[in-house]
């Protein structure tokens, strides 16, 4: 059955929030106002939003070094997120985490871990707890294609499979791990094949098509909730920006990147939805304006927020 206008509009809103948030964050980073590093999610918006719109608030996602988008897709507040990236006391992690560890537990996160692959067993453990307690919640670890070569990925897939845990493994193939192309580190072209080693279903979808991602995710989530176990969902997308904001990208051609820009998920969504008459340009324009304001306000909020008080430096080391 077709998706409701409301749902479609919310998908667009969250994808746009991600795009605008990343653009603003990268900009602040280039101007030296963000310390450390920023890993933009641009090009993958449909993947995170398609998956997270298929989840409930109390389902949990495990993030990575590139999880601004995952948090926003799950419903996180962009102001508290921008504040975190600027290292402010008002950020989700009170400035302790920054861009790489940004995690909004109030909207259903298990944390964002910057060691590639390390979030996977956390999601498996959460799924185990859900099953032991007879809850119908689902745990969703996000991993890049580079992350599937870590031992964590293999161990986690196997554990979830043998215990048939309510886990949806989302493998976002954005084609690069820093400078390394997927074809240089994985021999199989269809990454969903890797599910066969564990005897679980592997599904592959166009990661630029938010509706396709949502539909596939919804099926896998239903399967998990009904106790049938984990699924591997591969979303084929692309990292349209450098590995981190300002990264030189010596390893790929501008043409390659340009070609993918033609397929970026927001423009495509607008084209398809308006062409089919499912949504009107006016509806989408309204969201454009709304989100532009929201992100501008988030930046203001962050900039005007205080830094953490040095007197609190020893807080939160032990519970």
């Amino acid at each position, binding site marked *: 059955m077709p998706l409701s206008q409301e749902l479609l509009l919310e998908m667009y809103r969250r994808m746009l929030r991600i795009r605008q948030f990343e653009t603003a964050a990268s900009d602040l980073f280039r101007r030296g106002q963000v310390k450390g590093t920023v890993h933009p999610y641009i090009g993958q918006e449909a993947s995170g939003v398609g998956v997270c719109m298929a989840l409930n608030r109390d389902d*949990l996602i*495990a993030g990575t070094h590139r999880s601004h988008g995952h948090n926003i897709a799950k419903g996180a507040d962009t102001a508290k997120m921008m504040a975190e990236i600027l290292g402010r006391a008002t*950020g*989700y*992690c*009170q*400035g*302790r*985490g920054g861009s790489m*560890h940004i*995690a909004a*537990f109030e909207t259903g996160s*298990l*944390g964002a*871990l910057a*060691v590639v692959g*390390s979030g*996977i*067993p*956390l*999601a*498996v*453990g*959460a*799924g*185990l*707890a*859900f099953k*032991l307690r007879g809850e119908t919640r689902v*745990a969703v670890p996000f991993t890049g294609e580079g992350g599937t070569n870590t*031992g*964590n990925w293999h*161990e*986690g897939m*196997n*554990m979830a499979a*043998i215990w048939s845990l309510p886990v949806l493994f989302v493998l976002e193939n954005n084609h690069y791990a820093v400078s390394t192309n997927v074809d240089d580190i994985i021999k199989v072209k269809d990454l969903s094949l890797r599910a066969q080693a564990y005897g679980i279903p592997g599904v592959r979808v166009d990661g630029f098509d938010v509706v396709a991602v949502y539909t596939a995710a919804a099926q896998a989530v239903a399967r998990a909730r009904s106790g049938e176990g984990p699924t591997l969902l591969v979303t084929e997308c692309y990292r349209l920006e450098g590995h981190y904001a300002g990264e030189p990208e010596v390893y790929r051609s501008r043409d390659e990147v340009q070609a993918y820009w033609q397929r970026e998920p927001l423009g495509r969504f607008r084209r398809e939805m308006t062409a089919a008459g499912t949504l009107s340009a006016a509806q989408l324009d309204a969201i454009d304006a709304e989100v532009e304001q929201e992100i501008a306000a988030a930046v203001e909020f962050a900039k005007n927020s205080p830094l953490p008080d040095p007197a609190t430096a020893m*807080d*939160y*080391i*032990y*519970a």
Partner: protein
Amino acid sequence: MAAAERDAVSLGSAKPTLSPDLITQAPAGAPAQELTYQEAIRAALREEMQRDPAVFLLGEDIGKHGGAFGVTRTLFDEFGPNRVINTPISENSIVGAGTGAALVGMRPVMEIMFVDFSGLAMDQICTQAAKLRLMTGGQVKVPWVLRMPQGGGAGKSIAAQHSQSLEVWYAHIPGLKVVLPSTPYDAKGLLKAAIRDDNPVIFLEQKFLYSFRGHVPDADYVVPLGQCDVKRSGADVTIVASGLMVWYAMLAAKILAPEGIDVEVVDVCTISPLDRATIGRSARKTGRVVLVAEACKSYGPTGEWAMTVMEEAFDYLRAPVVRVTGRDTPIPFADSLEKGAWPETEDVVQAVHQVMAW
């Protein structure tokens, strides 16, 4: 692996000098029973699992088989497969799964068969679990316990990859607590405290001690984390030790008493956070300190203890702090080589003579 255990048993009893009466802790009068260190750990697990449904066990072969050293034996039959869970051989993910379960309200107690294998899980232990609370600005806590047998003892002969003492790897990482009990009483009380603690706790079990016996109260009790325990009070010299070394220290004290040397023994049963005050107090009292650790010498626990004495009692020192430690070598298999790789009671006695003679 249980072969190592069997050795421990036989050798434990074949070493009459290391008799249970060297240390008595159970309050006189109160109902208690004599348990081995291994049984005391099992009792703590059972009681905490009965008390709190959030507590469950995760590890390799901990079900019917009872784990590498039989510690969890009978618990599978008593609590079933949802509370005692056998895992694949995936150490890093066992710990990671424990962390994930802890993040959503469970209190997992995990077992890694030998601390030597924890090299595979260092990322989840030290880089994830230990840091999650701070990285998230206190949004979460990670209440789990990771049980790991470690160390050796004369004649264990399980060679380089099954004999290490690695408390320092974990004690150096803020966010973790590290415990190493020396007696059945402490093992039970500290494990209960660890399970009730809201932080990730590394619970190290000295393999040679599994067969050691001691009186353990029937009543529910905990031994608080973060404190050293003065196992023997004395006036002339302080021996700071942990795990099996505490027994060597107590035996040394007994051997030295007739010579008129009154030894105080400070048991560092919580390795981290370190109770510096108790070590300092004792060092200021005696002015002479011997440090004893089973771990390798260089960059081992004795360094931190020595610095603590320096910071807390420098002006009171009548002799340099002397240490007795494991050799800086991977543990060799052959008896004839293994013997010298670990401290012996005689080494402790000699070190005390050295600081007394200064």
